[in-house]
């Protein structure tokens, strides 16, 4: 499945955050989105995932238009995301955070809550058992029943990515997944994402300022500045592009 962006523009009261942007995301590849602060990267993510509506232009997913659909509808079509500021449900347990993602809407009605409790208790138990190995690999098994707010910053980022992956997306958008993390945690996240990519032509789209991470991890790099796409290409080409060096890499 491919994501195609055609002539996308977003204007906020006079400021043009994204300007006439065309972009194709290749499935099965890791695409990185780089550029200086205020270049419109997060705005582009918000447009794709429905948190903002574009002023002009189209977004096509698998050939179908998803422009301006609500965020929940876009997520259900297989496009998942994480946020720059971690959005875990802090008072819920780590396990509950993941269970919500894994359930993908099953047994979540009021009627189910009141009258199908036995049946639901069983599926919750099964889902739980399915998630324990994943948490064990991440070294978070002993924290799984504690509230998510007890996690460290790095662990929260890890769980947020795991949670997004648990929705079984076809495409995952990550907004600065390794910002402020130690090298060990970065390696853990890389491994997690590589496993995901290895399955069935999944697509990864990452905003990141950590250049060593970008150039060593991404297959394709897109550069934005002042709302416009100024370059795209394989990492080696981008590293030597004079416009990119001038605008961002310095």
């Amino acid at each position, binding site marked *: 499945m491919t994501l195609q962006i055609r002539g996308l523009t977003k204007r906020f009261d006079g400021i043009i955050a994204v300007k006439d942007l065309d972009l194709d995301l290749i499935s099965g590849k890791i695409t990185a989105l780089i550029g200086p602060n205020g270049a419109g990267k997060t705005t582009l993510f918000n447009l794709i995932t429905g948190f903002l509506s574009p002023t002009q232009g189209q977004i096509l997913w698998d050939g179908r238009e998803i422009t301006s659909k609500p*965020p929940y509808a876009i997520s259900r079509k297989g496009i998942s995301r994480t946020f720059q500021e971690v959005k875990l449900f802090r008072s819920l347990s780590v396990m509950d955070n993941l269970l919500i993602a894994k359930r993908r809407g099953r047994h979540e009605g009021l009627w189910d809550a009141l009258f199908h409790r036995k049946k639901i208790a069983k599926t919750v138990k099964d889902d739980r058992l399915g998630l324990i190995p994943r948490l064990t690999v991440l070294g978070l098994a002993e924290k799984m029943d504690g509230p998510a707010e007890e996690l460290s910053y790095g662990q929260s980022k890890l769980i947020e990515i795991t949670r*997004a992956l648990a929705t079984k997306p076809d495409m995952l958008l990550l907004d600065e997944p390794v910002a402020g993390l130690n090298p060990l945690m970065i390696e853990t996240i890389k491994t997690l994402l590589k496993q995901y990519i290895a399955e069935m032509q999944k697509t990864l789209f990452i905003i990141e300022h950590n250049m060593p991470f970008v150039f060593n991890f991404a297959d394709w790099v897109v550069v934005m500045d002042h709302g416009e796409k100024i370059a795209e290409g394989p990492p080696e080409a981008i590293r030597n592009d004079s416009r990119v060096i001038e605008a961002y890499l310095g």
Partner: protein
Amino acid sequence: MGYLLNILIISGIFGILSVSLNVLCGFSGILSLAHAAFFGIGAYTLGLLTTKLGIPYWTAFMAGGVFAAFFGILIGLPTLRLKGDYLLIATLGFGEIYTNTMTNLDNITEGTRGITGIPSPSLLGIRFDSDATFIILLFIACALCIASASFIKYSPFGKILFAISEDEDGVASLGRNTTRFKVTSIVFSAFWAGIAGSLYASYVGYINPNLFTINESILIFTMVLFGGLGSIPGSLIGAFILVALPEAMRFIGLPNTVAAVIRQMTYGLLLIVIMYFRPQGLLGTVKLR
């Protein structure tokens, strides 16, 4: 003894109100000052259907809950897109509209004169017309309300409500239509407020618009905050204390006019004290943001 039973019954009715409001405020994080309006809709539905249209009691009783729930959808759909303070103001507006409508639609509601002669319930030949019998009925209603609220609290449905109160965008990004969940929680909450209204109207036998004003909404809200957002036992304790405390003050021997003012002040004072020493409420775990 009769006096104590009376206090228990009023506490029970307010217990249903505070537990159901807690599902909305404590679980979903939707602060509402419209709860007395749903309470009143239930009371008026039962009162009008039984006295004016001669509808059988139990049909009218359930209609109280259903009608309040229906208004929950009506209010929920347009207002639940608002957040925080704006939503609070919108619910406040609804409460005011409700009170004014009941007061001024007097060819139907009898205005400030109120509705008299509301019948007591009877079932299988037992009439629940005394305090001692009515409390049995109330106990059953309370038990059902508490059970359904606790089932929700620990269900997948309830987890989504708690998640929405924490971070609505996060829930949407996981593919959930958050508006649907919020409307469902207001429907549940309004239904039980309506049932509490049905119970209240048939217990007292007389209702008027002044019983279901913004003051009562604030009182129920105080019970929830006092007991703790998200805590069901907390809401029950909050309801009992805030019903019983003013009654206890009667025995100090203050004149009635002074007592009414002091009562209002006590609510305020109680809220300040609890917010200062225990911002999450007596038994709560969720802090008000």
